[in-house]
């Protein structure tokens, strides 16, 4: 189990796609749910929301950005090799219902998470406007897939190297000015979700975000992933990962995501060093 069947480097090798054999999880998984992966005996448990699930083939696909030791270790796994542990599907799935016009905003690898949700929202009959963005053209992922999954796609790059020159929030604001939008789903880096929520708050449009807190067990046992939502502490792993974005304390989340910054640097440096030595 958990063999890597397909491996693809994207966005200049900073983002990696792994299609993994996990028949039980693939059978149960729904858009918005995540898995916890552990590469080897000494590895960390890392939560990642699934980008694609294929129950017939019995596979799940994750797309992740290489940001530290654990994701670098994931990247080092080749086709035919295995993740030691994959646990899931975890968390609540996205609530998909027909509302009218909805906007899906995805940034960075958040686009991967957004893809099945976008498709799901369109499949139940919504008119889906998708906005995806990246820092620069080379870092953009899943443009074609998002185009197919939505009715209308807007692409943004921070440096103007492709599509709209600017942030996804600029395009979001333009759309909210013109259209009667019933729901916005925003998934990406925490600052992007925070600013997207500020924009939608101005237009009083309900906004769902998917939070990527640090987790250990992912089943509500440890409370590592706790986030403040509407002044209350919630567990992202079992009560989320999706929450009403207007209620989320993003500043607290951002700080908590940096909890182990120093340790992560130590681990990553050691890994790079070991790799060179090995």
């Amino acid at each position, binding site marked *: 189990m958990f063999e890597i069947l397909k491996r693809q480097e994207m966005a200049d090798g900073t983002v990696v796609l792994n299609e993994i054999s996990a028949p039980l999880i693939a059978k149960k998984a729904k858009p918005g749910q995540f898995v916890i992966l552990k590469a080897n005996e000494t590895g960390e*448990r890392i939560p990642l929301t699934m980008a694609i699930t294929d129950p017939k083939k019995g596979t799940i696909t994750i797309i992740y950005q290489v940001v530290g030791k654990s994701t670098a270790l994931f990247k080092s796994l080749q086709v035919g090799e295995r993740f030691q542990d994959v*646990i899931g599907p975890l968390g609540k799935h996205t609530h998909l219902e027909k509302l009218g016009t909805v906007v899906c905003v995805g940034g960075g690898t958040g686009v991967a998470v957004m893809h099945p949700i976008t498709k799901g929202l369109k499949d139940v009959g919504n008119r889906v406007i998708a906005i995806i963005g990246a820092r620069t053209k080379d870092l953009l992922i899943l443009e074609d897939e998002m185009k197919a999954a939505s009715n209308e796609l807007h692409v943004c790059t921070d440096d103007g190297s492709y599509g709209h020159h600017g942030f996804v929030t600029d395009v979001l604001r333009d759309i909210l000015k013109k259209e009667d939008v019933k729901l916005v789903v925003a998934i990406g880096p925490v600052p992007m979700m925070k600013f997207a929520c500020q924009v939608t708050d101005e237009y009083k449009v309900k906004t769902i975000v998917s939070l990527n807190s640090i987790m250990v067990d992912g089943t509500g*046992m440890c409370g590592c992933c706790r986030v403040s939502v509407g002044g209350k502490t919630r567990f992202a792993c079992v009560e989320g990962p999706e929450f009403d974005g207007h209620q989320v304390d993003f500043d*607290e989340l951002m*700080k908590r995501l*940096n909890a182990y910054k120093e340790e992560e640097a130590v681990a990553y440096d050691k890994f790079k060093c070991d790799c060179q030595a090995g």
Partner: protein
Amino acid sequence: MEEKTAKKDKIPRQPMSEQEADVRKRNFEEVPFGYTPELAMKEAERCLQCKKPSCIDGCPVAVDIPGFIKLIKEGEFTASIRKVWERNSLPAVCGRVCPQEIQCEELCILGKKGDPVAIGNLERFVADNERNHGTGELPPKARSTGKRVAAIGAGPSGLTVAGDLILKGHDVTVFEAFHKPGGVLVYGIPEFRLPKEIVYSEVNFLERLGVKLECNYVIGKTISIDELFDQGFDAVYIGVGAGLPRFMNIPGENLIGIYSANEYLTRSNLMKAYLFPEYDTPIVKGRNVAVFGAGNVAMDAARTAMRLGAEKVRIVYRRSREEMPAREAEIHHAEEEGIEFYLLTAPTRFMGNEKGRVTGMECIQMELGEPDDSGRRRPIPLEGSKFELECDLAVIAVGAGANPILTQSTEGLDINKWGYIMADPLTGKTTKKGVWAGGDIVSGQATVILAMGAGRLASNSIHDYLTWGW
């Protein structure tokens, strides 16, 4: 008879030698070294071999205590472990973590005048001896019945059910949500109190008996109980543990460096964060540590923090020493290692810095009033007694609640108002046909051996059901 008693009383209770407090408080190796065969035989000599032994009544799984001790006395260690295995599949664990002082040893007749027989130490010895020098020969198994049982949760309760039913000829599979078996024995109890190698060895014993183990299965998510029945299981035992951490709901509790005991211990024990960066999981290493609560879990957290290099570790508890729920031996070990106790003290809020890290806490002193529902005297805040303490790591060990993942996803399983599963106290039967439950998910947070006792009752009932249909 009197003469015999007098003679045996002359041998004092044999202590186990242990690592010096100053040394052990900075390492994760086990604290006591265990008996040598000579010491074990000497201690076994003290047992009076009572005709009506009350010690057995104190054991939740009714181990034949005089029986296995007699065999130790005779130097028949293999026969002795077999005697224990008749009733207990996890003796190396129980010998270490059972609260014998309020169970078997409390009822030992020798305890009336002096020290009771060190039953726990002897159980530990005979299990360790088998693991290190044993023949590896397995106990006899009943003929296969062709019936399939699923035990959910590879903790003490589920493993007991697995051990019991495999010997009775049933085909048992244990499903575990974590990536390793053992439950609280692996994620909760630290290495220095229960080396993980011992837990894996006990699990391996069950596997050698034929128990199948499936890790990474979150029942209710990966697969449901009804699907297990569809796959051909005839009975299901739920022993998933409590699994929901309690917080104190005071301001600042989400600052970095504030952990639930579950998270702190899971990082250190299961994920081996104490070996970071050889292992990838990090953990906040505090210099000034506060642990809230005074049960065994709090002692484990405090002693772990000390071993991770803390300068100061405080147990902060709102009641007095008398009400502390931890075993006396654990409190004693913690004190020896320099853990300080701030009794009749409760936190009111945490303070943090611009990075969102905890830097201190505000506390208030308490006094004890009239007894509350639990029968313990209720702590009442003393006005004007607030004070501040520095702290860069806080662990909240004030108990656990019921994790809803499995119960919410299972039709027909009645739960009480706290979310615990309703199960018959004598059989472990739930309101769902073919489903039993026991351990912390029924009783609320308790001990390893009580979870094992519940597993024993349920396995008897499951065996009856599979054999006779009731």
